[in-house]
């Protein structure tokens, strides 16, 4: 029996997207523990950089190439993937929790009668059984749950983008690239008739420093302070807790957490965020964390490298003043 671990790569704008490399890092942990092969499934047309997938950790690349696989269409993807997955019968399939992954994975799972766990924050292998242990926040992000698929294959999971760093790119790594040209006769019921690209409004996931605010900022008018400080720190962006997004203090694209974005900047600064599991799920993999909260028992302090017990709003205004002074003195 093949115990292959397969990741479903993602292609955007005709190029292999970085979430593919993150998935390889997730998959590598599992394939090492299972002592098995790590393969990447890539769907697309006219792609060039396939050896990159090997450099980032894949032992084997299945490249399914067809003009109709150029854009994501769940029906066309499923038409190709359902028979292919049945043929290679992998143990585990991972995909990113992106708009594509969160659509195709449950669509496939529905057709394959496969167990699927969404938005995992950690994955492991159960020693005795070799089964995939999938951990994710549950019950509105208040607790973590570990889930497994005991008796059906494949075991499928999606993981948050930016939840893990890609492995070191290694051009000495070798592997097999298998090009498959499927025939697609499907008369798809979904047709793309137009596409309007969007300018990235908040580069939150790529920022080196994330300055986040929560209810401790007391009033929606104080949110502007976060943006003022972000302007004073290079490569920084503004984040927010779900609470203040729900209250309408700040727009949804700034939301960090289970139902928002996952970030892993060099420094994450949380002003007046108590740290529900929901929020921690989106930022606890940051390289370093500063938390400012007036409640010394706030759970955010459990993940902080520097925890300051004090008034978030006062500290935020003082920080702004100090940074402005520094700037003027340069």
């Amino acid at each position, binding site marked *: 029996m093949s115990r292959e671990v397969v990741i479903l790569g993602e292609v955007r704008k005709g190029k292999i997207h970085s979430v593919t490399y993150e998935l390889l890092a997730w998959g590598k942990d599992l394939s090492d523990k299972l002592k098995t092969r790590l393969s990447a499934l890539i769907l697309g047309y006219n792609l060039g950089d396939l050896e990159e997938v090997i450099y980032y950790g894949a032992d084997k690349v299945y490249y399914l190439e067809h003009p109709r696989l150029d854009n994501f269409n769940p029906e066309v993807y499923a038409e190709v993937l359902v028979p292919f997955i049945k043929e290679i019968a992998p143990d585990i399939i991972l995909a990113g929790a992106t708009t594509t992954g969160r659509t195709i994975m*449950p669509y496939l799972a529905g057709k394959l009668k496969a167990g699927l766990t969404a938005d995992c924050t950690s994955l492991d292998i159960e020693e005795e059984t070799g089964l995939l242990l999938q951990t994710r926040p549950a019950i509105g992000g208040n607790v973590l749950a570990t889930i*497994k698929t005991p*008796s059906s294959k494949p075991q499928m999971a999606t993981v948050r983008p930016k939840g893990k760093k890609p492995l070191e790119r290694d051009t000495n790594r070798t592997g097999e690239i298998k090009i498959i040209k499927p025939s697609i006769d499907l008369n798809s*019921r979904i047709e793309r008739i137009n596409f309007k690209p*969007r300018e990235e409004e908040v580069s939150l996931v790529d920022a080196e420093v994330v300055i986040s605010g929560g209810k401790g900022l007391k009033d929606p008018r104080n949110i502007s302070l976060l943006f003022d400080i972000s302007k004073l720190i290079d490569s920084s962006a503004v984040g927010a807790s779900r609470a203040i997004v729900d209250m309408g203090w700040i727009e949804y694209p700034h939301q960090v957490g*289970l139902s928002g974005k996952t970030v892993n900047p060099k420094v994450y600064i949380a002003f007046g965020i108590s740290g529900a599991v929901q929020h921690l799920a989106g930022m606890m993999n940051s390289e370093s964390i500063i938390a400012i909260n007036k409640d010394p028992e706030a759970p955010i302090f459990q993940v902080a490298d520097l925890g300051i017990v004090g008034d978030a709003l006062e*500290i935020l205004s003082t920080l702004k003043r100090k940074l402005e002074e520094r700037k003027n003195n340069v």
Partner: protein
Amino acid sequence: MNIYVLVKQVPATDKVKIDESTGTMKREEVEAVINPLDLYAIETSLQIKEMYEGKTSITAISMGPPKAEEVLKEAISMGCDRGILLSDRAFAGADTWATSYTIGKLIKRLEPFSLIITGERATDGETGQVGPSLAGQLDLPIVTYTSRILEINDSYAILERETEEGTETLKMKLPGVISVTKAIGEPRLPTLKGKIKARNTKIEIFDLEKLGVTNEEVGLLGSLTRVVKVFYPKISRTGRRIKVKDPEEAVSYIIEFLQERGIL
């Protein structure tokens, strides 16, 4: 045109209490509400009713304990015509596959339809998997993250879908499934007329027997995934926790921290 809207009753998320001995939610102590994101699915169905030239009938469908009738009543008070509740002890503990399976079984027994509409996800489980899984199981086309309905008639819908890269315009043949985002527009409030209608409308209940399925197909037994354990995260860094006497002191720590990491 028949439209089915899927709605779920969820705990008001901020107030959830967990029984630490069993790892389960103390449901009886928690206020239950309609999943806020499902209001956008209902809103979408009502927008379609206004756009579509012929007659439209909207049925809200839910699965849950008898108490979940409340969310169907709420859907009717907003303008839905009818409510169906899948309710049986045997349905309890269903994962997203078994939930989709059970709803699929129901839909196959109902009148033909043009569209099934779901919210983006439920605020308790946060998976967003039931819509696509149902589409996969019933072999229907699906458009997720729908932000706008541009056109709809008996044979197709033209929709906008939001992705990380931009906005797609898609033409989907009907019948099909869509999940919608908040961008679809603010959900309307229940009307007085709607509330009276909700009070007078009997919610139809489908149990195991009426649905014509066996115990093994649904609920926990029909699920492919199992929760192994539920726990509070024990994550801790060996960080310093400092109680500062004034904001100035706090800021000096923050600036020092940023300087050490080459940020400032």
